[in-house]
């Protein structure tokens, strides 16, 4: 075969390959153009019969032709395979906006989340988290906290007591009550741990309050206590202002005004500027020396601050909730909004 003829064969073969419209046609074309009985194969087998001076040129030309056509077949094959797959994929089309296969996820209760948030803010500056009993001795809830025996907060109109349930006589400081505040853990914690103390105490508390939009017989508080050899009123202010910024946002402003609690002296209330108004957010103060004495600390050696905040109030303010009953009704339409 002369080289001119070879060029024609290649051109024709290439056309056949590229004209193949499916894989079967391509196989036929491959066999016709490159198979054993193809013109090129025949020519290749005839190389040995050529004059020695032409063998080399013709041989190289034929080899190149085989390479070219083989590549053309592979290209075409890839293209046809892709086309065939595209057809299958098109048949496999689905509507991804159909809401199938969504993994279930519930929600945390907002009060739990809020308590964790508050605890984490204080953990970040080295306060540990402790919890205490809900059914508590009057001693820890009142006496150890410098609350006089006649104080109205001890009355049954404020505090829930329990009926005798065994043969033990419980009266005065030994009487059992549902704690009205998380503050009893102040005394319990100090009894068990020598100073310094840096702790926050989240938990459930109880009052004889009938239900309305802002009152519930069961609610939650977070207590905080820092006791060391050199704590001053400025530490109280700065630490709680830090909390307010972390919890309500970096721009939260705070204001401290005098107040009265039996277990702190001086006492204060912290107001937070939120949604264009000053809101009473928590009570705090320097731990009263009588509290230190009640738990066996020497009031001449240590000072400290304590604070207590209502978890429901924090959550209601931060999330625009106006009815405390939402927390306890377990309505999934409400719980589902907690994030």
């Amino acid at each position, binding site marked *: 075969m002369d080289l001119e003829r070879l060029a024609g064969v290649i051109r024709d073969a290439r056309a056949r390959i590229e004209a193949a419209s499916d894989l079967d046609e391509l196989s036929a074309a491959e066999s016709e153009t490159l198979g054993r009985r193809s013109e090129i194969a025949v020519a290749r087998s005839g190389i040995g019969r050529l004059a020695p001076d032409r063998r080399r040129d013709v041989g190289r030309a034929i080899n190149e032709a085989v390479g070219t056509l083989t590549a053309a077949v592979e290209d075409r094959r890839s293209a046809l395979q892709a086309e065939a797959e595209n057809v299958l994929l098109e048949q496999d089309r689905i509507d991804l906006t159909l809401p199938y296969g969504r*993994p279930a*996820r*519930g*929600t*945390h*209760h907002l*009060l*739990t989340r809020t308590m*964790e948030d508050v605890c984490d803010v*204080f*953990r970040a*500056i*080295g*306060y*540990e*988290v402790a919890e205490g009993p*809900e*059914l*508590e*001795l009057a001693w820890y809830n009142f006496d150890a906290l410098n609350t006089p025996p*006649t104080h*109205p907060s001890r009355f*049954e*109109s404020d505090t*829930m*007591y*329990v*009926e005798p*349930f065994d043969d033990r006589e419980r009266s005065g400081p030994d009487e*059992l009550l*549902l704690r009205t505040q998380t503050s009893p853990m102040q005394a319990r914690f100090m009894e068990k741990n020598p100073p310094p103390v840096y*702790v926050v105490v989240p938990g*459930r508390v109880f009052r*004889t309050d009938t239900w309305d939009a802002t009152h519930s*017989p069961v609610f939650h508080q977070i207590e905080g206590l820092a006791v*060391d050899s050199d*704590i*001053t*009123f*400025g530490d109280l202010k*700065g630490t709680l*202002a*830090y909390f307010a910024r972390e919890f309500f946002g970096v721009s939260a402003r705070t*204001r*401290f*005004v*005098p107040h*009265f609690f039996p277990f702190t*002296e*001086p006492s204060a*209330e912290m107001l937070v500027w939120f949604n264009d108004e000053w809101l009473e957010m928590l009570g705090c103060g*320097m731990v*009263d020396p009588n509290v230190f004495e009640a738990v066996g600390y020497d009031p001449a050696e240590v*000072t400290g601050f304590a604070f207590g905040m209502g978890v429901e109030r924090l959550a209601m303010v931060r999330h625009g909730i106006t009815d405390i009953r939402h927390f*306890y009704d*377990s*309505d*999934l*339409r409400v*719980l589902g909004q907690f994030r």
Partner: protein
Amino acid sequence: MKVPIGWLADFIDLPTRDPYELERILVSLGHEVEGIEEFGPSFEGVVVGRVEEARPHPDADRIRFCRVDDGTATRDVVCGAWNFEAGAVIAYARAGSRLGTDTDQPLEVGSRKIRGIVSHGMFASARELGLGDDHDGIMVLNDLGAATDDDLGRPLEEVIGLGDVVLDVSITTNRGDCMGIRGLARELAAYWEIPLRDISPSFPTGPEPSAFEVSINDVEACPRFVAHQVDDVRIGPSPLWMQLRLLAIGQRPISNVVDVSNYVMWELGHPIHTFDAEAISGGKVIIRRAEEGERLETLDGVERPLAAGDILVTDPSGPIALAGVMGGASTEVSAKTTSVLVEAANWHPPSILSTSWRLGLRSEASARFERGVDPNLSALATARTVELVAMTSGGMPRSGAVDCYPIPRRPWTVDLTARDVSRLLGPAPSFGDALALLERLGFGSDRDGRSARVTVPTHRSDVTRPADLVEEIARLHGYDRFPDLVRHGSRGGLTPEQLAVRRLREALVGAGLTEAQTLSFIGQDDLDALGLPLEDPRRVTIRVKNPLREEEAILRTTLLPGLMGAMSRNVARGMKSVRLFETGRVFTARDDPEDPRIPFQPVHLAMVLSGSGEDAFAATGLVDLMARVTDRKLELRQESLPGLHPGRGAVVTCGTTEIGMVGELHPAAVRKFGLEGRIAVAEMDLGPLVSGNPPWMLEDVSAYPPMVFDLAFVLADTVPAGRLLEVVEESAGPYLESLELFDEFRGGSIPDAHRSLAVRITLRAMDHTISDGEAAPIGRGIAAAVADRLGGVLRGSI
């Protein structure tokens, strides 16, 4: 306490009357301002007029025809009131004026024909003007000392001085001294460093001293009793200026003597009681504690049983007043009273508190006595009352008061050191500045270097220790002026238990459960609804002594009733699928092992699941999830459990400890909670589940392929699948990587009461590929163990 700004100005020259600035200052001193309101007129266009003529209406008996001068003209008015004559200066609501402008439906006053005569407007009563309850006649301003002929035509609100702004101040329980206008003025005077303009009552006196003998049987109950008699009293209305101040603070004007008592209480913070002196028998007043069984009719007409410990004012015939709480009916000042005994006494605060709460008689007076009143104020309060009673009733005071004050309260001292101040407040204010602040508040100080002896004024009974003085210093210095320092501790971690509880909650929420918080109270009905037998430990409960409702009278021993209630409410609202969990304390009647003084209150976790596909397996699957999260081996021991479906319940054990149960609620219990269908539940004690684990260690993984094969066994139905898995696990040898039960089959060639269970076993070695030849004896060993221990027959061969 309502504080009219104009009233404060009686005692101090206010640098500002801006209510918001006053609010800011009071709040900075610890006196919260809960509201600001104006005590203004509720009328428009009412002027002072003078009645020129008043004669019977020609065509009606009960009304009169009048002519009134309103300063510009004389007009005709028809009036139904008869409490005035020509010459009276009255409140004239002209045609076009409006009354009741603070209500939804103000009255437009017009000209209208009454029995043939056109009445141009009307004469107004106090009630029509929003100035009290009096509607027996019109307001006669000259009788009330409120207006004269010179005021004709002037707007009424201007003439009588309406428009004061009233601050509603909340006084903390430690500050009885601020329960009066004078006390708050004293605080403001200290703030501004200006003098307090105190009152010094004066009045004429008759020749005779007060004809009463006072004896105090219990000095703790009554540290001081001051009484002063005023004769020739004429009971009538108090002057309008006094009535307006009482109205501004929300007190109803009643009569001159009663109004004066209230006025002085508000002004000085010292409650006053007045007796009809002639109704006291024997000229003798005895102060003593009540005895059990005594009774007293109080001036509200209620006969009240007294308790031992109540403090009484008595005369030789018996009790005449419940001290500090309410007067007695027999000695009440009435319209016929002509001689009044004014009492300013000091009572034991806890006794007053206990009596007033027991009887539900909390009043402005008891609120002051509960906080404590300075006994040294009693003489001034008596004198001020006598002065105003004499002024408003024409009465003549006796020549002197009876003052029984066995142990006068004297100022006390507190030793304060510079360190007391600086260790609580830091470097500022300096000790010198601190003492100066105390002096502004009326404390005396005698400084000796780094310490001082501070004298406390007797109205500050709340101040007895250095810390109390430090609060006073900080308060007046200004809380805003202290620095903000962030105080760091040294332990910010969670305990392993706290961490485990958080991870459990995360896992359950991730598994699609929603966390609920339910009340800690349940009712007897809840325990009955669960079908718990009498001996069930959850029936050993603690009852609340003073529950809000009987359905909430018991402290919960299980979380299930709360969650079932939540489920019922959600289903009633149309929720198809409800998956809830809760963690919370339950209450046992056993002693807490760590503090045997209190009952043990373990933290439980419970869940309830209902809806399509929710059955016992959903709950056991979640128990398994909890086991994986806490890295515990939890096992199920299926048995018939109280409250649960007899064939679908199991005890959950952790090691040798039973920690709870899982399964489906008994259909009877489901119905009791108003529900239907399957409800899967689980409840566990979290304690054993979350106690600390040592850190887990990574196990190396193999580079060789696994050998996987399936074995199926025919087993009696009595063999739990869990047992099969246990036996396979124990007999599979060291190469066992995982084990899965993938098929349960009944029928076909399987005998009755039997089933086929198929397990897929994956073996893998760390150091070689396990061949078929190596796996076959392992499979045979498993089959032998299952046959031997469970009676299982291998299907097919190995």
